[in-house]
């Protein structure tokens, strides 16, 4: 269509007359509008692949940034804010009380030295001659005197723990290996372990030092149950 001809028609910018583009012509010879259509083709596999990859990435991203699915406070914890990514991190960033520090230290010692026999759960292995610590009357005396002695020089002979008799438990003495602080922390951890159901008082390093000195003569010799029972429960 020439420019001149266009002037007599409505101008293209509204497209009213020029609807023949893509349209059809009716029987009166006049152009008619038509609505858009779409072709069908397969979708590129690359695009679907991209979606899957990004979904995987997205899942990992959410897991690592705050979802904390296996964390202590449950999944999607409401107390974990940026820049923390898990409840453990929040806990660690909070200043600890003295008690927390002692217990943390004691736990480390326990895991390294004692857990191989007495287990992380504190239930020991009674079938193999390892008495439990959870609920043990030797642990839960009012004062830690007996327990300190056991840890220092270990036990031989028959000893009854939580209704079961153990003969010659093969426990090594720790007098030369653990210092006062470590020993006190360890004993506190065992005595005050809520997870095991223990709720006795903690032991202080000074007390351990005191008992160590008082039993210096017993070094190298293991305690028997009778000797231990001589020690009053409130000492």
């Amino acid at each position, binding site marked *: *269509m020439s420019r001149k*001809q266009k002037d*007599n*028609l*409505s*101008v*293209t*910018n*509204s*497209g*009213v*007359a*020029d609807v*023949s*583009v*893509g*349209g*059809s*012509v*009716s*029987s*009166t*010879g*006049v*152009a*008619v*509008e*038509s*609505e*858009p*259509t*779409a*072709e*069908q*083709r*397969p*979708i*590129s596999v690359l*695009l679907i692949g*991209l*979606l899957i990859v*990004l*979904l995987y*990435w*997205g899942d990992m*991203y*959410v897991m690592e*940034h*705050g*979802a*904390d699915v296996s964390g202590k406070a449950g999944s*999607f*914890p*409401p*107390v*974990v*804010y*940026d820049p*923390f*990514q898990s409840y453990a991190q929040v806990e660690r960033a909070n200043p600890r009380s003295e008690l927390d520090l002692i217990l943390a230290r004691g736990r480390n010692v326990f895991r390294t030295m004692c857990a191989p026999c007495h287990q992380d759960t504190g239930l020991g292995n009674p079938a193999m001659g390892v008495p439990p610590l959870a609920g043990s009357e030797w642990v839960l005396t009012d004062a830690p005197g007996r327990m300190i002695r056991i840890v220092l020089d270990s036990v031989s002979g028959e000893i009854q723990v939580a209704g079961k008799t153990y003969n010659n438990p093969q426990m090594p003495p720790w007098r030369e290996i653990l210092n006062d602080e470590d020993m006190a922390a360890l004993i506190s951890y065992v005595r005050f372990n809520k997870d095991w159901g223990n709720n006795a008082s903690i032991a202080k390093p000074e007390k351990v030092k005191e008992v160590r000195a008082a039993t210096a003569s017993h070094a190298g010799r293991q305690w028997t149950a009778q000797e231990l029972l001589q020690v009053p429960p409130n000492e």
Partner: protein
Amino acid sequence: MASDNPAGGAPITQDRSFAGHGQAGLSPCYSMTAPAASTLVSEPSRPSAVIATQARVPTTEIDASCRVPVLLLFVSGAIWLLVGIFLLLLSSVKLHSPGVLADTAWLTLGRIRPAAMNAVLYGFASQTAIGVLLWMLCRLAGTRLFFQSTILIAGMLWNLGVTTGFVGILAGAGTGFDWLEMPRYASVILFVAYALIGICAVMTFHFRRDPALYVSQWYLLAALFWFPWIYSAANFLLLIQPVRGVMQAVVNAWYTNIFLHLWLGSIGLAVIFYFIPKLIGRPLYNRWLAAFGFWTLAFFANLSGLNQLTGGPVPAWMISISVAAGVLLIVPLISVAINWHLTLAGNYQRAKEDMTLRFVVFGAGCYLIAEALGIVLGTREVSVATHYTYLELGHRYLALFGFVGMVLWGSLHYIVPRLVQMDWYCPKLTKTHFRCSALGVGLIFVALSAGGVLHGLKMNLGTEDMVRLVRATVPFVGLSTLGWLLLLIGQGALLMNLFVVLRRSVEPYRRSAWELVRSDNPAQPEESS
């Protein structure tokens, strides 16, 4: 191909309600429009052939049925646009000259900017989008608009609601929530108006003559259902039974994201998918790809709202979900980009001739840029530097005016002549509208982005004094003020075009009515041919 004289000697006015309006020769810009066929239109065959169960209603009848309600929506939308942009211009001025008009609470920056945004979002964008939605649904359904008078009432109610809310914000009753500043009484009116419109739209959709659905209908249907949900939920959870504490910010962020992405954005995408194939006369490249893009957008854009809250007082996992969903928006972005480009391939120069296509292609380009930028800005690492800066503001304006605005203006440009069966008053005004809007939006976006980068570098990555660094961004804000001015001029051109066309389309009624009054004889329809 149309014959030289589309009037063709055939009688013009048989099935149209306008009797002998306007003739060629009134002005060089104005000429007779072609009459549409009075016979039934035969559908071009589609590759995915679904048998049409009923014949479509003739196009002119469809357009005639949409005429009054949609025109009301368009015209009120254009007026609100002018009001909104004027106030945004004023706020931009206040950002670099804070003393301007600062002596009354009604015009303080903190009130005019939310008022302007609400005017633009609900007064212009939503209304025009609803008008386009209704018209497009009718056209694609091949049926007339249902319950036209109800929509007319709803449109008036909508305007009442927006006016009440607008004045309420300026008076100090703004709620303080982003994009929901209108007081409760206004939002209730809006919701009722929308409910009426929604019902009519769904009925129109339901009674479509062709059961097959085109891509645009998915987006329109989706938008129709999403908006009342988010609007009622957000208003309920923020204004009626407010949630406690920071959950309010969460609901707010969820709402604004879905409002832009999946209410205005969906309709904008529907427009682009509709006009690009239609105006170049080729089918859309790939329907399955379009479906893929639609569902991925629907799913991930819904979840990406909280990436506005990075670094905010919200647990980490919530932000992580939104950030991840935001990154996944790459998939629908690529899908639509491929689809549009391969449909348009080789036909880009048509945009030079066809103004509607020009608006739509420009809008599509802005959409791609805005979406990509949004994905980047939504990640934690980038937001460290860019959060709370002008860059985010500029990005929102790009999405709102560069994408939504442009495609809506393009649709307006196409639809209005068909509603009034009359050409635009002056194509030069249309060109002015396009150029000023495009330049304005571009200037606003570039200026605010550049200023925002500076803003972010100094504020978020450095410790320079706040007052000094804000002063350093002032020249950029000044440039953006220029952009607003351009945008305002462009909308002025639109409004002028619109008003003249409307006046002319009403002219024959006025004239015959006047003749009727003047003469004592019973009316004889004047043949002003």
